[in-house]
C-alpha cells in the first residue's frame, strides 16, 4: 500500500514538475524579451554607446563613428572604412585605452602617418590627431569626458592638406581653387579651423542655392545625422546665413548688382567630386 501510494504521489508530482519547469521557461522567455526591449530603448537614448568619438575624412568631410576597438581599412566590414587605392583591406587596428588615448596598431607592411610621422609600431592618437593612409587624411576626434591626456600641438592643417599626395589627388585643382577663388572669411572663425572641416561643407545631395533662399530649411545644419542602421554620419555645413553675411560684408553689395555671378566654392567642389567619382 505504501509503495503504491508513493507511486501515485510521484505520478501526480511529475505534472507539477513539468508545470514548474514550463513556468521557468516561460518566465525566462518573458524576461529575455523584456530585457532586450529595455536594452534597445536604453541604446536609443544613448546614441554614442560603445563609441569613443569619430574619425573624420578630411577630403570628404565624412565622419565615421569610432568604437572602442576595431579596424581601419578598405574592406567593407572595416569599422573605419576608407576608399583609397593605397589602403590595405585591414590597414590598421585600434583600441581605446583609458588614460592613454586611441592606440593605433598598423598591420604588417602597412604604411601610415600619425601626426605626419611614419607609424611603425603602436601609436597613440589624442583628440585632433591626424592620420594619413595613402591619399586619405583622417582626423581623430574623441568625446569630451573620456580620460585621455589633453591634445598637443599638431602641424597646421595646411601642411596636412598641402602634401604631395593631396595635390596628386586633385591634380592641383583644389589648390588652384583655394588660392584663386579664395574662401570667404567668416566672422569670428579663423581660416585654420574651417579649412579642414569645411571642405565637405554642404550636405551631400542637397541643392546648393548660392542665394540661400532655403537656408532655414537646411536640416543638416551643424548636425550629426543618424542613418537608419544606427550609423552616425557627420556633415559639416557652415551656416548658410553666415556665408551670406560674409559675402555681403566682403563685397559690400549684391554680386548681381555688379554683374558678377557668385559661384559657390562648395558647388564647385561638388561638381569636381562627381567628375572624379570619389
Amino acid at each position, binding site marked *: 500500500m505504501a509503495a503504491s501510494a*508513493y*507511486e501515485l*504521489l*510521484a*505520478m501526480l*508530482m*511529475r*505534472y*507539477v*514538475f*513539468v508545470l*514548474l*519547469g*514550463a*513556468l*521557468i*521557461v516561460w*518566465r*525566462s*522567455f*518573458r*524576461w*529575455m524579451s*523584456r*530585457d*532586450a526591449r529595455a*536594452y534597445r530603448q*536604453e541604446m536609443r*537614448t*544613448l546614441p*554614442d*554607446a*560603445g563609441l569613443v*568619438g*569619430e574619425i573624420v575624412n578630411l577630403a570628404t568631410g565624412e565622419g565615421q563613428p569610432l*568604437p*572602442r*576597438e*576595431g579596424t581601419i581599412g578598405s574592406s567593407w*566590414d572595416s569599422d573605419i572604412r576608407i576608399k583609397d587605392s593605397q589602403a590595405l583591406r*585591414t590597414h590598421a*587596428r585600434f*583600441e581605446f585605452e583609458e588614460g592613454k588615448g586611441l592606440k593605433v596598431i598598423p*598591420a604588417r607592411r602597412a604604411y601610415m602617418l600619425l601626426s605626419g610621422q611614419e607609424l611603425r609600431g603602436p601609436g597613440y592618437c589624442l*583628440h585632433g590627431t591626424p592620420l594619413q593612409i595613402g591619399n586619405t587624411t583622417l582626423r581623430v*576626434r*574623441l*568625446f*569630451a*569626458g*573620456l580620460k585621455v591626456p589633453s591634445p598637443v600641438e599638431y602641424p597646421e592643417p595646411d601642411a596636412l592638406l598641402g602634401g604631395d599626395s593631396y595635390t596628386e589627388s586633385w591634380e592641383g585643382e583644389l589648390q588652384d581653387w583655394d588660392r584663386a577663388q579664395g574662401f570667404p572669411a567668416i566672422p569670428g572663425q579663423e581660416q585654420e579651423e574651417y579649412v579642414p572641416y569645411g571642405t565637405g561643407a554642404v550636405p551631400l545631395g542637397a541643392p546648393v542655392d548660392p542665394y540661400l533662399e532655403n537656408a532655414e530649411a537646411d536640416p543638416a545644419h551643424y548636425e*550629426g545625422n543618424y542613418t537608419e542602421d544606427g550609423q552616425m554620419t557627420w556633415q559639416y555645413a557652415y551656416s548658410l546665413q553666415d556665408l551670406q553675411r560674409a559675402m555681403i560684408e566682403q563685397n559690400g553689395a549684391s554680386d548681381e548688382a555688379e554683374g558678377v555671378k557668385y559661384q559657390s566654392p562648395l558647388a564647385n567642389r561638388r561638381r569636381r567630386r562627381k567628375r572624379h567619382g570619389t
Partner: protein
Amino acid sequence: MERKKQRARSDPGRAMLLTVMVFFFLGFFLLAIKDGSWQCFVLSVLVPAIVFFGTTVISRLFPSDKLLLALTNFLCALGVLMLYRISPTRGMTQALNYGVGVVCMILSAMLVRYMPKTKTLTILMMIGSLGFLTLPILIGTETNGAKNWMSVGGYSMQPSEIVKLALLWCLAYMLSQRKYILSILFGGACLLILMLQKDLGTALLYYALCLVLLYASTGSLLLVGTGLAGGAGAAVVGYQMFAHVKARLAIWQDPWQYTQGAGLQIVRSFVAIANGGLWGVGLGLGNAGNSTRAGGIPEAYNDFIFPVILHEFGTIFGLIVLGMYLFIVIRAVMIARRSRTVFYGLLAIGCATLIAVQTFVIIGGNIKLIPLTGVTLPFISYGGTSMVSSLCVIGFLQGIASRNAAGVDEDRALAMEGGGLR
C-alpha cells in the same frame, strides 16, 4: 510591505528564484518520502540554499545576468537531484561539487571583471595548459578507450575540462590581437594532444571552439572551410587508427545488433526514453539510472544522465531542459553582442559555443543523432571538474555581462556630462 511587493514585481529574478527553489524542495522532499533518509531531508533544504546563494551573491558583488544564473543553477540542482536519485553517495558528492562550482563561478567572474587582460597571463596560461593537458598521457588512467583521467592525491580529475577554459581565454586574447597563425598553432597543438589521449569527444569540442572563434574574428569562410576539411581528414584518420572509433560508428549505425555488448548503453537509453513517454514514469519510480538493476543504463550518472531525466520526468520535461540550455546560449550570445571589445566578444561567443556544442554532442549521442562520444552534459553530469569548468564558463559570462553593464553606465555618464564631441 508595499515596497517589498513592488520590488518583487519589478524584479523578475525573485519569482524565478522562488520557482526554482520550490522545484528542488519538492523534488528532494519526494525522494525523502521514498527513502526516509535524513540526508535527503537535509538536501531538500541545502540545495535550494545553494541555488539561492549562487543566484544572489554575484549580483550583490557587481551587476550580473540574473536570468543566466537562475537557469544555470536550475540545471546544476537538477543534476544533484538526478544523481541523488541514481545513487545517494554520488548525489551528496555532487552537491559538494555544486557548492565548490558556485564559488569557482564567483571567482572566475571576478577574474574577468577586475583582471585586465595581459600578455604575460596569457602566455603563462598557454604554457600551463599545454603541460597540464599532456599530464594524463604520462600518468593517466584509461577509461572507455580514452586516456583522459588522472588522479592526484586520491582525487581523480580530467585536465581537458579545465584546459578548455584556458584555451578559450588564450584563443580569444590572441585572436583579438589578430595573431592568427599563433592561435591556429596553439589550437592545433591542443587538438593533437587530445587525439593522442584518444579523447575524441573533447577533441570535437575543442575543434568546434577553435573554428567558431576563428570565424568570429576573421569572418573568412575559406579558413573555416579549410578547418572543416582538415577536421574531416582527421576524422577519417581517427576512424582508421582507433578501433574504438570504428566500434562506436558501427554501434551508431545499428545499436540493436549489439544489445548484449557495446551497444547496451544506447539501446537501454532508448528503452528508458520509451518507457518514460511524454510525462515520465515519476521521480523515484524508474529503473534506468541504477546500473545494478535490470535494465539500468551503465554510466547513467555521466554520459547518459539525459535519458534518465527523460525516463523519470518525461519527454516534455526533456524539451523544457533543452529549452533552458537554449536560453543560456541565447543569453551568452546577447552578452557577446553587447560586449565593448573584441576580446570579451570572442570570450563570450566562445562560452556560448562550449555550452551549445557540448550539449549537442552528448544529447545527440544519447538519441543516436550522431555517434556517441564521451563528453559530459554541462551542469548536470556527475563530476567535479566538469561542474567547475561549466560553472566557470558561466562565471566568465557574468564577468563580461558586468563589464558591459559598466560600459553602459560609462556611456550614460558621458552623455550626462554633455556628451558628444569636444
